[in-house]
């Protein structure tokens, strides 16, 4: 609550602005409260003229004041939720400042892809149109969203992602998209603009976080219908109560009837409903995920099939050394030492992992090595080092290393067979074999053995999939690997199914097949060839590093480009629905206690028997009714933090979640107001006249 206080204060002006009936009528429940507040105020004003006594005038004013407060509290919840997005929008706006762009006049991608000789002109970034080509050099702001058509550059995207490390963007492939407002740090790129002015990624982001483009989701609409129907029932109950009570000469005053109505209609959920929706979107934004629509967030909660790329999601993107397998009875430690020496200057993750493994095994590996580095190339498919004394070490693909060894022509065929056997075995386990060899001057070329590079499954991922299964979500791993490798990794990671040697078409087919069975599918993707599948999936999360085609096709963008986040997105979707359900249940359950407060207060004077229903032993009819109204208003404020934070969600089967939530919000909703109203009544009873 304390952390929220400044936000609540900041939201107050907005809360009063929202009192305008033109805004209020969109929320039928709170609109009824506002009309009730206005009517009660009118009654309070008219009462002195009609000769009301001082006590009843004070009572009417008190009711009117608390009804207005109820409306203000509801607006406050919405204003606070919106306020959180506004701060973020302001930061984003700063990146949208107009810059001068260097536009290429009549760009020709074939003869002059680098646009080094083409004529250029300086135009304001706001004037760029779809399809324009611009040149961006080091230090320049990228003027708009687009795809790199030539060049490679490091780009600072911290303005959008908050991540300070620069990222590489290059033409072709899946890392070609650049976002307007980000800055090129090195090199020079040619970019084709892919967005219309005012519709850039940043523009959309701003609209999203501000909540301006928030549309109601189907589920929210359905809930609104239910709440409106409940309100109508209670309007009828209260409207008909007048004549019915009139038969027994027990007609309550207008203020009391309005108080009863406001207490009965589901004001708690009515007041917090839109705040819950805004806060749900906001929780995604805080995890650096942009949902293009609230519908997508809700669909995430319903997902029953999760398609995940193997690489990056289930396994680390790169293979890691996991074993040294010496051949010909050699010492694995010697193999490890040699392999590590060959990898000391190797900047790739695989190379580093070999050094790490050797050190882990207690093999002495120097910090640096004084030798000529032979880097990996696509032609040789090997890398290694050449020492000054003529000793050469190589590691690489089996056939390449074998060819290199056979340059000496003196390798026993049994040895070759042993290496091949090891390599095949590793391949069968889903790993990659790396053959290590050494040639020393004067000595025979040696095949030392094989390093087992393994696709390492991320720790803890199997547990997460088990959780997903408990939630009723089927996980499917998608990989380009052969079925054997895929099966091995699928088993280790504990996914339910896998799609091996997957092509984009097969991926699309799989999604369609799942959807035909009535399932909802979520997937992540980044490449242009993922775009059809992303569009087909019910929840398509595009990586921010991906192409603009992928980002267009998906309905969410993950700014951190972290595919595992899909799991969080599902949880946020569920949490959104649960929060709505919990507060609805709470709101309706509250009515029980309110009846026990108000009905005896209304009629016990005429029918003393009904005094038996005053089980809370409230002080007087006036204090009972006022206490119920005050409780009704205060509970909104008390629940604002819950609405913004969301109800806690832990993955478990539906029936267990239900039991827990029914106990907390259903039973709690029945009991809490009995206590709350009684406490408020104790305070109210101290006021003279009540």
């Amino acid at each position, binding site marked *: 609550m304390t952390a929220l206080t400044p936000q609540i204060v900041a939201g107050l002006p907005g809360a009063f602005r929202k009192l305008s009936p033109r805004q209020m009528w969109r929320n039928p429940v709170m609109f009824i409260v506002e009309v009730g507040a206005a009517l009660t105020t009118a009654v309070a004003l008219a009462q002195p003229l009609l000769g009301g006594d001082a006590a009843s005038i004070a009572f009417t004013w008190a009711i009117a004041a608390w009804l207005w407060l109820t409306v203000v509290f509801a607006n406050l919840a919405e204003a606070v939720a919106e306020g959180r997005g506004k701060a973020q929008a302001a930061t984003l706006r700063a990146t949208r400042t107009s810059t001068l762009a260097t536009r290429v006049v009549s760009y020709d991608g074939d003869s002059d892809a680098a646009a080094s000789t083409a004529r250029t002109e300086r135009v304001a970034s706001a004037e760029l149109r779809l399809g324009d080509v611009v040149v961006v050099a080091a230090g320049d702001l990228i003027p708009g969203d687009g795809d790199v058509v030539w060049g490679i550059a490091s780009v600072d995207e911290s303005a959008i992602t908050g991540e300070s490390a620069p990222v590489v963007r290059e033409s072709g492939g899946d890392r070609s998209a650049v976002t307007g407002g980000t800055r090129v740090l090195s090199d020079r790129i040619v970019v084709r603009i892919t967005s219309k002015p005012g519709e850039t990624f940043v523009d959309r982001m701003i609209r999203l976080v501000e909540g301006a483009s928030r549309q109601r989701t189907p589920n929210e609409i359905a809930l609104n*219908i*239910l709440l409106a129907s409940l309100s109508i029932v209670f309007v009828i*109950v209260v409207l*008909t109560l*007048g004549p019915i009570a009139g038969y027994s000469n027990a007609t309550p005053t207008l203020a009391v009837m309005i108080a*009863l109505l406001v207490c009965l209609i589901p004001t708690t959920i009515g007041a917090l409903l839109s705040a819950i929706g805004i806060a749900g979107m906001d929780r995604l934004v805080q995890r650096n995920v942009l949902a293009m629509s609230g519908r997508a967030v809700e669909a995430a909660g319903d997902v029953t099939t999760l398609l995940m790329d193997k690489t990056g999601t289930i396994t680390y993107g790169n293979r890691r050394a996991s074993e040294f397998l010496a051949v010909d009875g050699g010492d694995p430690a010697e193999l490890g030492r040699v392999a590590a020496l060959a990898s000391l200057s190797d900047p790739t993750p695989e190379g580093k992992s070999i050094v790490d493994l050797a050190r882990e095994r207690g093999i002495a590996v120097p910090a640096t090595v004084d030798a000529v580095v032979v880097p990996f190339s696509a032609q040789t498919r090997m890398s290694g080092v050449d020492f000054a004394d003529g000793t050469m070490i190589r590691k690489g693909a089996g056939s390449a290393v074998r060819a290199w060894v056979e340059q000496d022509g003196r390798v026993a065929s049994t040895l070759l067979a042993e290496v091949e056997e090891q390599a095949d075995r590793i391949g069968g386990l889903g790993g990659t074999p790396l053959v290590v060899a050494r040639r020393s001057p004067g000595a025979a070329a040696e095949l030392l053995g094989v390093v087992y590079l393994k696709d390492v499954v991320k720790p803890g991922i199997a547990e997460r999939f088990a959780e997903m299964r408990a939630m009723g979500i089927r996980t499917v791993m998608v990989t380009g690997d052969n079925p054997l490798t895929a099966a091995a990794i699928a088993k280790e990671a504990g996914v339910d199914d896998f799609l091996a040697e997957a092509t984009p078409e097969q991926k699309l087919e799989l999604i369609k097949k799942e959807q035909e069975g009535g399932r909802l599918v979520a997937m992540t993707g980044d490449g242009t060839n993922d775009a059809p599948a992303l569009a087909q999936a019910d929840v398509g999360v595009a990586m921010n590093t991906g192409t603009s085609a992928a980002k267009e096709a998906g309905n969410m963008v993950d700014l951190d480009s972290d595919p595992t986040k899909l799991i969080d997105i599902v949880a946020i979707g569920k949490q*959104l629905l649960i929060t709505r359900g919990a507060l609805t249940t709470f709101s309706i359950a509250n009515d029980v206690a309110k009846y026990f407060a108000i009905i005896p207060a209304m009629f016990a004077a005429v*029918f003393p*028997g009904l005094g038996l229903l005053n089980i809370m032993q409230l002080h007087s009819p006036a204090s009972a009714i006022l206490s119920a109204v005050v409780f009704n208003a205060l509970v909104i404020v008390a629940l604002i933090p819950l609405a913004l934070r969301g109800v806690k969600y832990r993955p478990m089967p539906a029936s267990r979640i239900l039991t827990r939530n029914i106990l907390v919000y259903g039973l709690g909703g029945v009991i809490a107001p009995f206590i709350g109203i009684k406490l408020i009544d104790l305070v109210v009873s101290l006021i003279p006249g009540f």
Partner: protein
Amino acid sequence: MEIWLAVAQFATLALILAIVYRPLGDYLALTFTSGRHLRVERGLYRVVGVAPDSEQTWGAYLRGVLAFSFVGVVILYAIQRLQAVLPMSLGIPAIPEGLSFNNAISFVTNTNWQSYSPDVTMGYAVQMAGLAVQNFVSAAVGIAVAVALIRGLARRSTGTLGNFWVDLTRATVRILLPLSFLAAIALVIGGVVQNFAGFTDVTTLTGGTQSIPGGPVASQEAIKELGTNGGGFFNANSAHPFENPSGWTNLFQMVLMLAIPFSLPRTFGAMVGDKRQGYAVLAAMATIFVVSLAAVTTFELIGSGTAPEAAGGSFEGREQRFGISFSALFAGATTLTSTGAVDSMHDSYTALGGMIPMINMMLGEIAPGGVGSGLYGMLVLAVITVFIAGLLVGRTPEYLGKKIGPREIKLASLYILTTPTLVLVGTALSFAIPAIRADLESTSIWNPGLHGFSEVLYAFTSASNNNGSAFAGLTANTPWLNAALGVCMLLGRFLPMVFVLALAGSFAAQGRIPATAGTLPTHRPQFVGLLVGVTVIVVALTYFPVLALGPLAEGLA
């Protein structure tokens, strides 16, 4: 001792219903899924011009329901107005316009509210050609609509719900006619009269003369209970010894009125291919049924109030051959179904005891409710329950693989809104309009004060929920009550049907979402409890104030 008697009576009833549940429910399912047409049915289809194998959209199905019922009202009105010229009318004149209007609606809507004494108002022609016909077909219409909703839930991605004319015909020919034939024979054996003797003048023991009416009572009585109609042959209804002579016939009549409504969940389970779903609905119905019966029996056996305490028990308005607990059981059964037959006068119950039949009806006739209407009412409540529960588990709510979206919630909400609106607005208008209030107070209400209010509330509750039982003590044959209650019965019957069939159509159009661990199971005790909870809370919140101003204020005084 009386308490053990009550338990034994209830146990017997429950045992018989349990035995009937499976065979009758399965037979009903077979009736509505079979592809075969009986010869007599084919003949009927040819006469009416229906292609029996054609399927109808929900709109066409609804038009069938409404057209058939409209024609039913017109014919029944005409028969009553023409009574004077019809044969076997025992010389009774035509029935007046207002009463004919009210009564035509009453029987077509399966309500059987009777604001007159049937034995002296209706001759055999009206009874048999008019009322009995509607006793059969109005019940069949209810079953048909329930079957259409079941089909909507069972089918996938289709625009159709079956054929109303086929469902109507089968419900009548294969279910109601044969069963009531057997039941009528059993009732005759039990001592219910069946003759065309008209009025017989006899000399009583004290030497006075009395006109004793006879008539085809057993045949009427069977369908009266089996179709949850409730319209008696005699004014005293099932309290009359010619309609309900003994404890055995009393029990048998209860079995008849409860058999089909309690077996329909089985039909539902069988047709959607998951019998457990049927058991869940049955469990929800049975829970409310048991609690309600226990409440009314307890209140009556305690018998608080001046008269019962003076008499040593709550005996007023009850037949000695049934006693307090058996009467209370009947009162519960007749108001928990939409039957409305009475073997005791509910008006004479203790204030709190008399409130229970009222609450039974306010629940919307769902435990187990009328034939067909009970099941579809409970399924609509299940939709609302699933919606709230679905939110609580974080999934877009679904029932039997069908998504509950804005359209479904709108229809379910409208259904839930209909009857409370009719009850409350009808009652309130009766007191709000000065002329009507004056008329009520001078003519209709026999017991001024709180009890008088309860009588009016009971009348509107009974009419709007198509129950038809009366609290007694209220003269309802007045222009206002005939008209207002007629409108309540009409809207209370057909508006819900519109919403149910629209809902069925929207379910049928959907595919089916496969169940996963994330799906809320709707066959466990947990869901049953929730369904009962939602039902009771919704009703309690709606009616608490009016109950407080009537029976509660009277009972707690």
